[in-house]
């Protein structure tokens, strides 16, 4: 009997303990979830000098701008460099995830909340020293062989206007293609192009025409509270007016 009672008591104590643990877990888990939820995953792709790894850590112009923005807004964040497609899909599907720098378009508009512009970029045409045509308008390259790389804003824009381009998977080999005369014109982001040419000591390629300006944004998952988006947008505006964005960009020019 006593043993039974003792066992019952033990059983009762065990049950109570289990219930207490369960209750505690259910109380604590939202706190854990909140802590986790308040940390934003900020995804970007490797695209020097906008984003690259240095000593295993993400750095670059847009990485610095976005990091400073979240720090100033007092929001926890992690920056990760991953392939673009994966970054895009993750930001579409997972809460507290954003992707940068993204060009806003009508098709993309409905898929994200936007903080814009993280950076204002330009695309231009690059030609060899001995190129004898004066490129004055977009139309002047229509009959030429234009090189760019798959998924680039430069290629996307030109395709949208009905231009044919020779696309490769990476941008850097376009410099060699241009030097070897396999393409007449290289269409590239102006900052990336200068960076690539500097790294490779290229001095026989020139900027011929800067033909398009793009606003690039931070695109956040639709479940991101609108208050967070407004807070970030407000802070970004301050970063433009106090010269912080310009200061960061100047380091990479």
């Amino acid at each position, binding site marked *: 009997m006593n043993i039974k009672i003792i066992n019952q008591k033990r059983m009762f104590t065990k049950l109570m303990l289990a219930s207490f643990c369960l209750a505690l877990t259910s109380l604590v888990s939202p706190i854990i979830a909140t802590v986790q939820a308040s940390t934003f995953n900020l995804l970007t792709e490797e695209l020097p000098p906008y984003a690259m790894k240095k000593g295993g850590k993400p750095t670059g112009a847009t990485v610095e701008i976005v990091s400073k923005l979240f720090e100033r807004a007092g929001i926890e964040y992690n920056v990760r460099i991953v392939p673009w497609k994966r970054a895009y899909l993750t930001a579409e599907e997972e809460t507290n995830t954003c992707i940068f720098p993204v060009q*806003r*378009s*009508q098709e993309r*508009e*409905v898929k994200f909340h936007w903080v*814009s*512009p993280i950076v*204002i970029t330009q695309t231009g045409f690059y030609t060899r020293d001995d190129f004898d045509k004066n490129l*004055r*308008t*977009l*139309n002047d390259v229509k009959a030429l062989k234009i090189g760019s790389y798959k998924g680039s804003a430069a290629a996307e824009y030109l395709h949208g*206007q009905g231009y044919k381009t020779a696309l490769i998977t990476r941008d850097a080999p376009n410099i060699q293609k241009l030097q070897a005369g396999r393409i007449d014109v290289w269409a590239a982001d102006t900052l990336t192009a200068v960076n690539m040419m500097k790294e490779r000591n290229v001095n026989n390629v020139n900027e011929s*025409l*800067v*033909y*398009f*300006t793009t*606003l690039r944004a931070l695109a956040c998952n639709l479940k991101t509270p609108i208050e967070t988006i407004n807070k970030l947008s407000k802070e970004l*505006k301050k970063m*433009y*007016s106090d010269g912080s964005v310009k200061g960061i960009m100047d380091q990479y020019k």
Partner: protein
Amino acid sequence: MMDQRIVYFRMFLPTLFCTAIVFFSSFSPTAYAAMKDAERWLQSEFKDSTLSKDEQMKEMAWFIEAAKPYKGMTIRVVSERIDTHWYEANTLTKAFEDITGIKVVHEITGEDDVVKKISTQMDLEYNIYDAYINDSDLIGTHYRSGKVVAISDFIKNEGKDVTLPTLDLDDFIGLSFTTGPDGKLYQLPDQQFANLYWYRHDWFSRSDLKAKFKKIYGYELNVPQNWSAYEDIAEFFTVHVKELDGKKVYGHMDYGKKDPSLGWRFSDAWLSMAGAGDKGIPNGLPVDEWGIRVDGCVPVGASVTRGGALNGPASVYSIRKFVEWLDKYAPPNSTAMNFSQAGALPGQGNIAQQIFWYTAFTAALTDPDLAVTNSDGTPKWRMAPSPRGPYWEKGMKLGYQDAGSWTFLTSTPIDRRKAAWLYAQFLVSKTVSLQKMLVGLTPIRNSDINSKKMTEVAHKYGGLIEFYRSSARVAWTPTGTNVPDYPSLADLWWKNIALAANHKLSPQKAMDKMAGEMDSRLQNVADKGQERCAPKLNKEREAEYWLAQPGAPKAKLSNEKPQGRTLSYEDSLKAWD
């Protein structure tokens, strides 16, 4: 005739030669070279002008002189993607640079991107472009922002030395669209196009179809004057005619995909075509075609309960008809199409009419390879003033006119703004504007519309010139000054109309939801603050109170389908006299 011209030419040759010698000898060597360039451009590109050659040369001489301080500068402007702007970006930039020495990069992109860029520059006060060609739909935003240069002030003050003496502002047809409630001019139209009724004139002229229509509906198959007739004709082709020359035909074309482009026709003119707003040109006052009521220049609400008309009976009727026609009379899958996908269909030759068609596509629809064009390149179709809904009354605006207009921001440094202003004026100058109209068919000047040249070519353009010469034109206007912040409010249209188009909400519920959201957004605009005339919402009261007042919001009509009425093409234009 040709011989006579040669004789005249020979007679005047010595005079021309002497004039040229005197003209060029008064310039420095650099200016002389620029004048030679101007001469070359006049001969090769700007042959059609309402100015004489001598007047054109004088205009160019002024540009050369005024541009001197800015020579060697590169300026950057942006505009939307239509033929007129491509012509400017690819050809007119070169002419301007050759003549003035100012290089212009004229970027082309979607209008949504133009709006984002100008909003960003206004918001950040950070110079991205030196000038924008931005739809005048933003006039309410620009006027209230305090960040847009009032052109009428600029040309009297800091821009006086760079303002073309022959600009002739009175000759522009769209200045009322770009003038703020304070009477100041904030934008200068660069190109204009309208939304009109489009129909297959060849089918409407067929005696067999005319007889069949009359037998069923009791009146003539012709240009519909009201929505009842449009609906009857839509039903006639889709349900009764069904096939023509072995091809399935439809009496209506539209689109309903949840996409920003779905919003355009609604924010442009759908509600005004039904007659939802008040009387007033260019826009209804106190309630406009967005259903927004103003008190003076202050927006006070869009919901009927605040005195607006966005969810009033006329608006709900217009959305109900949009959904009904799309379901019953448009080709299958139209509901899943966006603007670009739907735009291609009329050219394929199986659409009989379209109530809302942008004239910017005139050139594209006169391609001789299309099924809707005759072998001599003349169109089988015509455009005419659009039919009116049952709530529409004389004195109201009817359709939409897009007026892409030069817009200058206070955040652009003054020297860059002045150089950009020179480029803007070059593009609308009388030397250039007629040729630009011939290329893009987007008129801005009365003198061009009424020119002899346009009379010669009018038959090629399916009624475009006739429309612009008619009195109907004044009832086609852009979004006006009641809309205090276009970029912050515009997305509500497509997001809510899509709910009705895809049967997720009834038209009444979709418009109730939208009106509530519009009021909230107006409050947000007020909270954010505007330089002048910021919204201040009316307190809510019973809808019945407002519906009983004269004007918009209008009470529900007992009969929303009066007798259908049609007129011949010619009479449809005269009906506006």
